[in-house]
């Protein structure tokens, strides 16, 4: 088990390097001269040659790209992503300011969608082709086909504009959280419900389920202990892969609900061409994704003994 974890840790090093290279080179992939962006971003004037030159020297943009990259990377791993171009603050401070809002939205949505996807998926599988199953099917079909920005706007119109029950935007109490979480989890859990259902049905059709029933175990134990534990292996893969989808989706939900999180920070920074912030956000989300994958791989080994003893 420890060897397995150690090996997975070693394997993520090249991935992390790749992520850092891509994040760093965003600055140069974007057409135009970074120094000109800085002048525009900082002083909001048409850049002159002199200003550009001065900035280049000041920011070290005249050094070879590899040196710049290594310099950036060595600071980045210590959590220093430089200063924002538009605000007189370190990038890290900007990110930390916005992080709690995003984390709150993210974890609430993730927990609620997974809980409901599991619950509805299991119910659908047990009552396959019965009324509950059909209801769940319609429900997920709606969730898959309704775009979340549209759903968000409709929910705002119903609950904020018409019924005046909930705030349309802003951040703070639970009442602010309800609409964004509802919008976001509705689409996020839709496909997952179907996926849980089909994985569980697949597991229920296996021979070991007949063995479990032949032992006279109650159906609840047959489903939860014997079938679901096996079904969890593909379910966990799918859920964790969809975390990136959740991160991307957060951007839209945060914009629709004016949620002061990292998603809206990213959008603002892209519009303001505040590249250090963009670089930092891309890098951090990439690293987060790698860490999530690592945790999932370890989780696998906990659930599936064939992986645990594979090496």
């Amino acid at each position: 088990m420890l060897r397995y974890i150690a090996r997975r840790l070693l394997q993520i090093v090249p991935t992390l390097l790749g992520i850092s290279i891509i994040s760093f080179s965003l600055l140069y992939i974007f057409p135009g001269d970074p120094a000109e962006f800085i002048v525009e971003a900082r002083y909001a004037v048409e850049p002159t040659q002199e200003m550009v030159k001065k900035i280049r020297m000041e920011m070290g943009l005249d050094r070879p790209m590899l040196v710049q990259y290594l310099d950036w990377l060595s600071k980045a791993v210590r959590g220093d992503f430089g200063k924002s171009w538009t605000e007189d603050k370190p990038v890290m401070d900007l990110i930390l300011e916005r992080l709690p809002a995003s984390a709150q939205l993210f974890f609430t949505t993730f927990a609620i969608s997974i809980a409901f996807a599991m619950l509805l998926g299991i119910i659908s599988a047990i009552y396959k082709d019965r009324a509950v199953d059909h209801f769940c099917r319609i429900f997920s079909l709606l969730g898959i086909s309704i775009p979340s920005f549209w759903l968000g706007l409709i929910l705002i119109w119903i609950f904020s504009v018409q019924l005046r029950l909930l705030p349309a935007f802003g951040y703070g109490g639970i009442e602010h959280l309800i609409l964004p979480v509802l919008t976001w989890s509705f689409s996020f859990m839709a496909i997952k419900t179907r996926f849980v259902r089909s994985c569980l049905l697949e597991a229920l059709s296996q021979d070991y389920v007949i063995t479990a029933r032949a032992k006279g175990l109650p159906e609840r134990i047959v489903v939860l202990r014997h079938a679901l534990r096996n079904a969890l292996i593909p379910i966990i893969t799918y859920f964790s892969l969809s975390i990136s989808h959740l991160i991307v989706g957060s951007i839209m939900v945060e914009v629709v609900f004016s949620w002061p999180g990292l998603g809206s920070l990213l959008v603002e920074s892209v519009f303001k061409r505040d590249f250090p912030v963009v670089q930092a956000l891309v890098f951090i989300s990439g690293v987060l994704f790698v860490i999530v994958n690592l945790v999932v791989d370890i989780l696998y080994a906990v659930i599936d003994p064939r992986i645990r003893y594979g090496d």
Partner: protein
Amino acid sequence: MLKIENLKVYFKTDLGIVKAVDGVDLEVHKGERFTLIGESGSGKSVLAISILRLLPKNAEISGKIVFNGKNLLELSEEEMRRIRGRKIAWIPQSQSSLNPVLTVGFQSAEPMIEHLGFDKKSAFAKVLRIFDFLGIGRNRAKDYPHQFSGGMRQRVLVAMGISTSPELIIADEPTKGLDASKRAQVVGLFRRIEDRTMLIITHDLNFAEKLADRIAVMYCGKIVEVSPAKEFFNEPLHPYSKGLLDSLPSRGLKPIRGFQPSMMNPPSGCRFRERCEFASERCRREPPLFNLNGRSVRCWLHD
């Protein structure tokens, strides 16, 4: 102990009705090893699993399965559940019948925890004793099925089956997928538990010969012969039984001509008549099960 009367199991499929078991009568006496033999697809496994009422949902079952005086087909699901694994144990085929994510020790302990009210610890202790008895090795109880060979998995399934001291054990193809030396070990394994009443389903005639007290032959959803094992192997009564024995390598390796007919619309009359060398005009009528001093056979030759 177990008496099956006119049992019919039909499967509704998109292509038509598959008559997997079509009017079976048989009786398993206490203490005997009753072996049901037949080709793949003759309905023998369906018959076995219908005793535990674990058939898929598209199956229609009729007739009577009387176990200790109670017709199992009339019991509620909950009453049936208390019989499964407690009074009637099922020893499935070994290949994929163990749950890959649970330890073999725990899987073997489950019936005792469920039916006998054992706590985990004492159930595990008893599992270790049974593992010892069956030659599995105590240290392997915490291992997972993928760490076992096919033969060892079969032992685990036997351990699971006998753990609650059931009154009847149904074993489904215990030698399927095992090579010859492993098959011999399974014979030894079943000899160790031979004091129990068993219904063994197999297409392995050598295995049947070594273990069975009585043999029933199933062909195309019907029982065609029931005989004491010794007499069966010395002098089979039904032409199909004879064909089966003649197709053994040790007895000349002569295959039965033709193929097993479709279970959707089996031939009228005797279902074996199209492949039978003794077939005559009267075989167009369905033969009844004739009784001949302790043996029974479904063939007009013995009228």
